[in-house]
């Protein structure tokens, strides 16, 4: 077979017409939801309600309902926070960095990944606020001018978190919305009911698909992508500072920023992949979110998974190399102490399971890759568990060591966070185009001007 390597393979399969792309993407928005959708929504919203009830109890009685104890001041809420912030990272990476690198295969998954970013950051942002002893005073964390002349502490990584996460949320949200504007206009033009027409008109901000609009749009999108790119690195770097700036053995390490970013991308891709596999199946987007795209994601997971694995190994090496006994013990304790079960779950899920992606067959097998991505998500949650809990439960003075056990309320809130996230995802899937219509159209064969005047060499 004569393959022209100078030519990019099309990211959209089956060479669909532009109309059919528009039709298939907007179909879920214009049709009634099936009973499966309602069942899924009921499931996620009952998880959400569980979380809300557990939170209500926690607010009424106090954080004592959780497993946190004296050495282990942070438990599930902070673990969940780091986990969900990490989930968000894949979205920005796909939509901004891959955009700057002109990776066309991102078009099928970018919108959905961005949406997930926003929901994940929303989920994550809840936790720093609810985990505090007096959540009703959460406003103290923001630097607002006040008569007491009280100011926040700019040396505290928790404050950096506040800025990092809120910046991240705002930029991601604007980026996402800007990307949505042409699609809103398309939906407005397709709308059959007055109500829809009104809403889409409102959100499309007067978009008329004019060349001038497109020109401005491309520029804004490019600038926003430029804005968002450093955030991919900075947000999780700052989240890692929560630990790295502390003096605790096992936390106080310089490897944390890159290690956390790699981990975040790793888990984010796993979560996006998991969700997209369901979406492409349910909404018949196999030709838009192609197996090639999924395979590429798997490759990224393989790379980031090995980066994470390298970090695990390097932590041990540095602990040994530092000659610091508490540091050495912290890592021995992770692997062989009371929390070794969590550590080995983490290693198995994060380091071992992605190794399957070395095999092309597995990379292209939807079921297996789905399972691996689930493993990765579990493993990455446990990574945060291991970091937070094992270091805190056994730090400098053996006299204050204690074992941390989560309570049912902790688990309820964790489930609630999943409920919150997936409820938003489901609502998103039913109200907005989960794939960018404009971008997919633009990457469909024949949509871009070529020197050959044709859409394809083959034809």
């Amino acid at each position: 077979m004569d393959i022209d390597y100078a030519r990019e393979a099309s990211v959209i399969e089956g060479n669909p017409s532009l109309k059919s792309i528009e039709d298939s993407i907007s179909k879920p928005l214009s049709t009634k939801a099936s009973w499966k959708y309602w069942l899924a929504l009921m499931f996620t919203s009952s998880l959400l309600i569980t979380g809300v009830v557990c939170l209500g109890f926690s607010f009424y009685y106090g954080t004592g309902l959780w497993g946190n104890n004296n050495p282990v001041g942070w438990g599930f809420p902070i673990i969940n926070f780091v986990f969900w912030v990490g989930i968000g990272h894949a979205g920005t990476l796909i939509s901004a960095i891959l955009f700057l690198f002109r990776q066309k295969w991102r078009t099928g998954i970018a919108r959905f990944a961005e949406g997930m970013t926003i929901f994940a950051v929303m989920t994550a942002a809840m936790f720093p606020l609810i985990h505090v002893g007096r959540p009703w005073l959460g406003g103290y964390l923001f630097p607002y001018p006040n008569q007491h002349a009280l100011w926040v502490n700019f040396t505290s990584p928790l404050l950096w978190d506040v800025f990092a996460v809120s910046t991240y949320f705002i930029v991601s949200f604007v980026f996402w919305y800007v990307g949505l504007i042409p699609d809103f206009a398309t939906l407005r033009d397709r709308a059959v009911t007055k109500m829809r027409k009104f809403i889409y008109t409102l959100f499309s901000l007067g978009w008329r698909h004019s060349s001038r609009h497109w020109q401005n749009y491309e520029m804004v999108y490019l600038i926003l992508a430029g804005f968002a790119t450093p955030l991919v690195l900075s947000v999780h770097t700052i989240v890692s500072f929560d630990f790295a700036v502390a003096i605790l053995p096992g936390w106080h390490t310089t490897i944390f920023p890159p290690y956390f970013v790699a981990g975040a991308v790793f888990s984010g891709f796993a979560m996006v992949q998991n969700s997209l596999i369901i979406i492409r199946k349910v909404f018949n987007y196999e030709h838009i979110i192609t197996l090639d795209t999924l395979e590429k994601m798997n490759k990224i997971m393989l790379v980031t998974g090995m980066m994470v694995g390298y970090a695990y190994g390097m932590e041990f090496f540095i602990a040994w190399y530092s000659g610091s006994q508490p540091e050495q013990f912290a890592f021995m304790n992770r692997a062989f102490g009371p929390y070794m079960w969590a550590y080995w779950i983490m290693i198995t899920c994060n380091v071992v399971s992605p190794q399957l992606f070395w095999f092309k067959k597995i990379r292209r097998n939807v079921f297996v890759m789905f399972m691996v991505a689930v493993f990765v998500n579990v493993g990455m949650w446990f990574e945060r568990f291991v970091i937070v809990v094992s270091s805190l439960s056994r730090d400098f003075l053996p006299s204050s060591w204690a074992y941390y056990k989560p309570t049912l309320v902790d688990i309820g809130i964790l489930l609630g966070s999943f409920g919150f996230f997936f409820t938003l995802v489901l609502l998103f899937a039913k109200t907005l185009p989960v794939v960018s219509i404009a971008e997919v159209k633009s990457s469909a064969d024949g949509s871009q001007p070529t020197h050959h005047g044709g859409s394809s060499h083959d034809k």
Partner: protein
Amino acid sequence: MDIMNNSEKKNGLEPMKSRNELHKQDAVPEAIQAEFGEAVTAGFKLENMSGLSRRKFMALMGASSAFAAASCTEYRDNGELMPYNKKPESITPGTANHYASTYTGNGHGWGILIKTREGRPVKIDGNPLHPINKGKIDSAAHASILNLYDPSRIKNPKRMAVSDMKLNSGQYQPASWDDADTEIIASLGNAAKSRKEIAIVIPAVASPSQKRLFDEFAEAYPTARFYTLSTFADKARQKAWEKCYGRGSFPVINWEKANIILSLNSDFLGNEGNTPEQIAKFASRRDADKPDEFNRLYVAEGAMSLTGSNADYRLRITPEAQLDLVFTLLNELCTKGQCSIACPLQLQQQIKKYTINGFAANYKVSAETLGYLLDDLMANKGKAIVYAGDCLPESVHIAVNILNAALGNDKIYDPKITNTTHSLNREGRIDELPAKMNSGKVSVLILLDSNPAYMLPDDYRWDEAAKKVPMRIAMLETENESSDGFEYILPIHHNFESWGDSHARSNVYGLMQPVIQPLYDSRQKEAALLTWTAAGKEAYTYDIYHKYVMDYWRKKIYPALNLAVDFNTFWYSALHDGFAMSNQSSHSMPVINISAAIGLKSISNQNFTVVLQPSHSLGDGTYANNGWLQELPHPITKVTWDNYAAIAPQTAAELGVEMNDLVEVSIGGRGVTLPVVVQPGMAEKLVAVELGYGRTDAGEIGNNVGVDASVLMTKQGGIADYIFTGASVKKAEGTYKLASTQEHHNLTDDMTKDFQYIRDIIREASVGEYKKNPKMFEHLKHEFESITADIEYPGIKWAMAIDLNKCIGCTQCTTTCNVENNIPVVGKDQVAEGREMHWMRIDRYYGGTPEEPIVRHQPMNCQHCDNAPCENVCPVVATNHSPDGLNQMIYNRCVGTRYCANNCPYKVRRFNFFDFRDHVADSYYKGDSMDLLHNPEVTIRARGVMEKCTFCVQRLSEAKSNATRDGVEFKGEKVTTACEDACPANAITFGNMNDKQSDIAQMREHNLGYYILDILNVKPNVTYLSRLKNTKSEDDITEKTKLDDTKLDDTKLKNTKSNDIKSENTKLNNIKPEGT
């Protein structure tokens, strides 16, 4: 009472109590009596308010607008705040008054100072002038203030309903004291007439006025008999002294004069005898500045006691081996011709078979240590003391007396000061009382502040017997197991509401005075008895016992002292001081009757031995309803809220049990199921159980905490009252979670073993090494370069030093800190979660082997680091540094991220996971009376707020403002923290380190001083003095203490020699490259 003339006032002997009386008129003596009337509760009752005067109207208007305003705030209204509209003369709002009084909780007659604020007691401390306890008390005494405000206190007299009343029998109805007096006096009269006995159960009498009262009562009612109920009363020692010296009152021991101390199963540093005095005297010979004067402590014991944990040499033997040990020492002494007394031949024959080698082989102890002991005793004749524990049988006490005499150690006794006993004219034996009640010979039973149903062994069958008495009267502060179903339950005053005196030591009389208006409709128990003695309810006045005590002092004590001053001056001066010295007796040590030891036989036992001990915090269970004491960690096991069976690791392995498993302990058919604590250092086949738990009618807090192990006891006792041989122990089904404040690490776990040494948390050496090279720890000091400028503290800089040589781990600092700083009780469930709130804790570390552990104690509070890691991580600056070097908390600002606690390497920060006062026992500690308890200078922390040791900042501020008021420069002298005040060993020094003259400045520079985890460069302001172990030079512990510095950090290694030292066998070292 008599009122003195103004003219008689002189010499500055102005008693604080009588400030009113200084300017009094003779016409108003009543007002003086009711000096607290305006202070606390009396004025607050709405029903007592007269009609609506203008003032009241304004007050109500003001109050209602205040309530309206308060209801708009987010916090619930916490009650009314009322200013004095007429200021009582002795009370200045915001200024504390201190009253001297006497603590009688344990019969030692300790002098106390009660701090009152606006007429309510808020803190108890030892009276520094008092000759017995010299300003120190124990945990129970510190915490006993909680009992005054205990919501379980009986508030009114109660009468059991009889059939003709409308209520069902078995129900109580409120009664008046008048009616109670009338009926009781009639019953008493009838009993006396019909020659039926009036039985009165009392705690041991230590008060001379009380003794006189009881004797007078017995005269008025000739059939009255008094029965003393006292647990752990040291009876064996008394009997032994009677046999050896002809009298049961034994002299005070000058512990501070002993070079060598051999403690036989005695926890004299823990909970036996006059602990504050004993600890102080013991610790005075552990002064790091005088290494030549260190005493050496040998402990031979079975269970691991606090004393044993402080031993230089510890012999692990069961109680039944103690007699053999004493005879071994005596025999070796005689064999070597070192016996200072003429031992009768018969005795020599009797003990001939006891030799060191034989003993060592028999009981598997080190013959070398025994050799050291013998050498030391012989080398320090007359300068050593052998002391047998309260629990040991009489035979051991006799043998010990003879051994001490043989060594000339009776010179250590101070025969001029003896512990006095007060015998009553009509005293009965409590073991005969149940039989008398059963036979119907008793027609009135009065329980005077005692609890026989709980305290007595079950085979007395007290409950059954007591039911046969027609008239039963319980006079108690809180209801207890014994008072159930009694005809009358009468509330009595707490000690802080009472008058009284005490004569526990021959050289001192203590006085007790009320410091608060009675909270409830209670009466002083003595006042009630006086009323009944006078056989007329009209005889009662509220000051009846006050007058009685004064009268006794006027007639009996004052004349005997031959003072130059008149009685009133004497009385007010004694009241001011809280005590009066009496003439010392001219007793000398009597000659010992050596033949008392003839015929004493060793005890053999193949089965388990059970030792029942008083609870370290609750004593015999009297304090069971005191949450602070229930939550005080046991000094060795760190278990709270429970008792347990402590057994040796080897024995536990044989039984197949671990911590929290249940075992069934049974002796002759009496059995009890207890959770296990595997206690390193226990003798094998020995079970140690604490009494004082398992109460069923103690109150919300104390009910059903732990197991009542007194079911193992019998009238006769075992080989001693509290030691039983021939017990069997077997594993029982199930487990029971004990709540301990420290995890129990396996001593054999290589991964975590000896961290206290590896991480340089505990630094120690032997006295010999220290004398050879006082700068032996110099190489461990670290100096770091900082990239930022250090903050200067030009004025005052507060610092603390804790001397690990003196600290014995008694936990009194914890209790006093709880009281001073309003630290809540969190409950067993929360301790189990690891959420105890103690600002000051004692860390316990095990080293050595499970069989022969080395136990170390280390008080741990906020270190107030200069580079505090907690401060830079708080996002809202709720914790920050003061200009005088304190790490401070702003509770209002704290949102509760807990980041500071995470980043604290010492883990001294405490988080309010709940509103703990609300959380414990259904809001028990939110009762109205509890509001009066709190120290008004210390904020009650809200839920969700972080807290920690403040170095008692309220005391520092007070001292500073006093200095400002007086116009003097404040240098920080004479300021103490609560823990420093309370430490019986004087191990804590606090002060301004910038004042170069101060003790603290010198401690900071001490050769032995070190900072825990100084490798982190957090620059703590608490200096610890390394512990010196007074072992023989042969046993110098070089290997253990010289740390391999590289393991902690590779920066700034000053002394490369330490690399040569062999490293500890931890796993971590295995991954270390050679030559680093």
